[in-house]
């Protein structure tokens, strides 16, 4: 009988290690001036340096150093007064120099931590994930293996190489061993990557788009029998490309490893690949025979020695911690936790905050962004912030609050703005979407409705107020939805002696 997850964690204690690679969003590459834009035509963002042409030399991108220090500071790390680049030597066609310029035993940031909160059976609980190091390196190019069954280099008919990505600055954030999570290992892993992503986003140092690969996570996991003090053999799962996958990969590995152990087999130290469809991992390269990368200090670069004063300036410039900010805004706006989470997950916190800052009522601001705008964005398969600005949403909300627009009209205005018809004001003018607030015009419609439904009018006169709905509906219909329903109700009831 195969163990399921609950049975597995009842017998085995998981130990995690997380390595997150983040592409920095610097305008130029790590060691040359080439552009870093995502999605450009293959090999159009290259030069002698990132192609590793004979004679070319690297020069460190100062912005990348700054970003790395910011990340280290936000993760409570010590910033090394002196760190060095090293060469990691191995051959691969998409590595222009056949060595990766990275950092080895002298990384730029060391010894930090990140506190994350998860829901447990006993309520919310905080875990401290300790950070071993934050180091800088360059990305490799991309290989596209054409033909063959696996899409891998072996068996391919031919391979295409794109060096646009070669030399893009990467920061690798490595945790220390994360133990003591018990059955909550998947949640802790996910919460860590989520919080890390929020921090990186708040620092503005990366696009942190897991689906585009600008943030990639490797999950190391080992199991040991509950109560034992030893560490098991670990596997390293790559290709984990979403927050949900982080959680699933941990679950998948716990189940796989526990069942191997149950069957009396040993765990092989290896790289595994996460399969998005099945949630399982597939065996990759064995690491039993550790590859010898022949690291040595990069002689083409001078050591990185950031001035203490600069580090302090960067520390002073750190934005509010995302977790602190979430708590503050949640209280300020009086939003339930679930709603807060929805905004965070939809990456709408910034725009909602900005909209509220422009005078909108928090509940309205939140529901417009999460509701109508997100719906339109989903239809168009773009991010909500590409469609409409916080200022425009705030303007629409202000028009609702002043009674110039009904919710229904406002939706049409937003649709017009999103459709490129102009500002809210322009859409209103073009489409003629004015609330009918002229009492005279409304009275004409009200009298017509009463005339058409005399029995209903009689019931309202007799005190049956809910019956007024049918009459209000008729008025709204007659005015093409442009009347303010509250106003119609007020006038109608007054007219029928109930006001």
């Amino acid at each position, binding site marked *: 009988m195969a163990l399921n997850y609950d049975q597995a964690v009842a017998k085995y204690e998981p130990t995690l290690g997380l390595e997150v690679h983040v592409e920095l969003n610097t305008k130029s590459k790590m060691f040359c001036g080439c552009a870093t834009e995502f999605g450009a035509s293959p090999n159009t963002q290259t030069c*002698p340096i990132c192609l590793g*042409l004979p004679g070319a030399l690297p020069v460190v991108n100062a912005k990348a150093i700054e970003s790395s220090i910011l990340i280290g500071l936000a993760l409570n790390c010590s910033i090394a007064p002196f760190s060095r680049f090293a060469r990691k030597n191995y051959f691969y066609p998409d590595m222009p120099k056949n060595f990766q310029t990275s950092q080895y035993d002298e990384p730029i940031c060391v010894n930090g931590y990140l506190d994350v909160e998860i829901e447990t059976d006993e309520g919310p609980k905080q875990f401290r994930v300790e950070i071993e190091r934050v180091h800088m390196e360059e990305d490799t190019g991309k290989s596209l293996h054409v033909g063959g069954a696996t899409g891998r280099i072996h068996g391919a008919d031919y391979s295409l190489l794109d060096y646009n990505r070669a030399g893009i600055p990467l920061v690798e954030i490595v945790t220390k061993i994360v133990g003591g999570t018990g059955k909550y290992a998947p949640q802790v892993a996910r919460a860590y990557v989520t919080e890390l992503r929020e921090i990186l986003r708040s620092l503005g140092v990366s696009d942190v788009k897991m689906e585009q690969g600008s943030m990639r996570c490797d999950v190391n996991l080992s199991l040991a029998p509950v109560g034992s003090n030893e560490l098991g053999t670990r596997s390293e799962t790559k290709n984990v490309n979403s927050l949900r996958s982080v959680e699933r990969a941990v679950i998948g590995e716990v189940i796989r490893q526990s069942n191997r152990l149950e069957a009396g087999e040993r765990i092989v130290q290896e790289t595994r690949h996460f399969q998005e469809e099945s949630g399982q991992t597939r065996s990759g390269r064995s690491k039993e025979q550790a590859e010898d990368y*022949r690291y040595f200090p990069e002689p083409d670069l001078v050591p990185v020695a950031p001035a203490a004063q600069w580090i302090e300036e960067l520390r002073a410039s750190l934005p509010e911690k995302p977790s602190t900010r979430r708590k503050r805004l949640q209280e300020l706006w009086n939003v339930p936790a679930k709603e807060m989470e929805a905004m965070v997950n939809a990456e709408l916190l910034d725009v909602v905050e900005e909209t509220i800052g422009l005078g909108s009522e928090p509940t309205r601001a939140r529901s417009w962004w999460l509701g109508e705008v997100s719906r339109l964005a989903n239809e168009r398969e773009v991010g909500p912030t590409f469609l409409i600005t916080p200022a425009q949403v705030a303007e629409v909300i202000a028009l609702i609050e002043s009674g110039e627009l009904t919710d229904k009209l406002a939706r049409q205005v937003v649709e017009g703005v999103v459709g490129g018809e102009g500002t809210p004001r322009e859409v209103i003018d073009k489409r003629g979407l004015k609330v009918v607030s002229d009492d005279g015009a409304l009275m004409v419609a009200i009298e017509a409705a009463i005339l058409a439904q005399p029995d209903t009018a009689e019931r309202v006169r007799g005190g049956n107020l809910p019956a007024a709905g049918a009459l209000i509906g008729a008025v709204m219909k007659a005015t093409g939805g442009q009347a303010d329903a509250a106003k119609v109700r007020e006038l109608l009831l007054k007219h029928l002696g109930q006001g």
Partner: protein
Amino acid sequence: MSDVTIHSTAAQMSEALIAGSTTSVALTNAHFAQIEAVEPAVHAFLHLDKDGALSQAAEVDAKRARGEKLAPLAGVPLALKDVLAQQGVPTTAGSKMLEGWRPPYDATVVKKLKDAGVVILGKTNMDEFAMGSSTENSAYGNTHNPWDLTRIPGGSGGGSAAALAAFQAPLAIGTDTGGSIRQPAAVTGTVGVKPTYGGVSRYGLIAFSSSLDQAGPCARTVLDTALLHEAIAGYDQMDSTSINAPVPQVVAAAKKLDIKGLKIGVVKELLGEGFQAGVRQRFEEALEELVKAGAQIVEVSCPNFDYGLAAYYLIAPSEASSNLARFDSMRYGIRIGDDGTRSAAEVMSLTRHEGFGAEVKRRIILGTYALSSGYYDAYYGSAQKVRTLVKRDFDAAFANVDVLVSPTCPTTAFKLGENTDDPLAMYLNDIATIPVNLAGIGGMSLPCGLAPEDGLPVGFQIMSPGMRDDLMYQVGGTLEAALVSKWGHTLLSQAPALAGN
């Protein structure tokens, strides 16, 4: 061409160009005529860029005719070591691996030369990837020493040195990782300078050993070398290891001809066993000239120099094993075995098997081994410590003396083929030049006579503290003047006539 000939100095050519008594086109043509005449015997060049050179020369002449302000060496021809990238011109580093490669960019040194109006005649022969002391490791045949065509011209920059000695060019660029400028200068009776590490940009220099490589000027006189030095030196933001400080005033120093009161240290460890008698004799005679000129000579001990060679042959191959990894046939250079059935890894392997020569493979294997986990500390780590000790020896010495001197190499030019089967004997040629590279300081070789036993040139090495390159030019210029006046002629005027001379 009127008053200047191919036998003139670059400084004289520059004056004639400025005076209008010759043109750059005329000078360039005269040098190509000499190249045509002697190249079959010497084989100093791997590639001649006659069209490019003549159009460059014509452009300089046109600018001069328009009265534009030009750099001192504008219009003077130069031979470029094939290890520097020159846009659009074949650049092989002496290796089959790069056969047919035309760089899409200029090395900073090349850009500076072009900006200064220096006319680049072509690319000179060298040991493959600058690994060697005889130019016999070139994939494109031997270069012959103009003093004796059966002998080596030194290496790795044998082509550049031979081109100078055979009057194919008045100026040349070399690169020096363990002596590749100075040793060829010594064995061909020419002048060569390895500037302070970081003094000249390495951008575009095909790397052998990044922490040791340095491009530098080669010429037939100390002043010409200084003129070229100032043309190529200076901070370059494309090279992180380049020094952001003013270029030492080497031209003024070369013209000073005064060393009164300077203290000159003779390195005890670089004059002992293994040095040819005639080399020692000419070296000591040169010391006498320095004393006569008013310098004080003292003996200095640098005990750690004894380990320099061993440390060098760990550090240089280690860095080379990594630097040469990029030659994998994927993006440039030759590609072997890509027949549609082989994997990328197999094609890489076949290409490297075919494309690299024996010495390059030897050093890649040595370096790969030295960097391997478990061996790193014993080899690469220890070698770096020796390097620090060598630096300290220099620091201690320079606390007491202005410059240090030694013979440039233990022997005069050996016969072609004499050492090809004995890498260790070949490596020993660099024993006196290597400490300078390990410490990153400046070194010069200039001729100090012909060894009585074989009539071949002997090199005199001057070593100066970091970024005090001016000191070696000051001493070198003075010594050169004293020796020429003592001999009554330049050393090169004693070289046997080649077909074109």
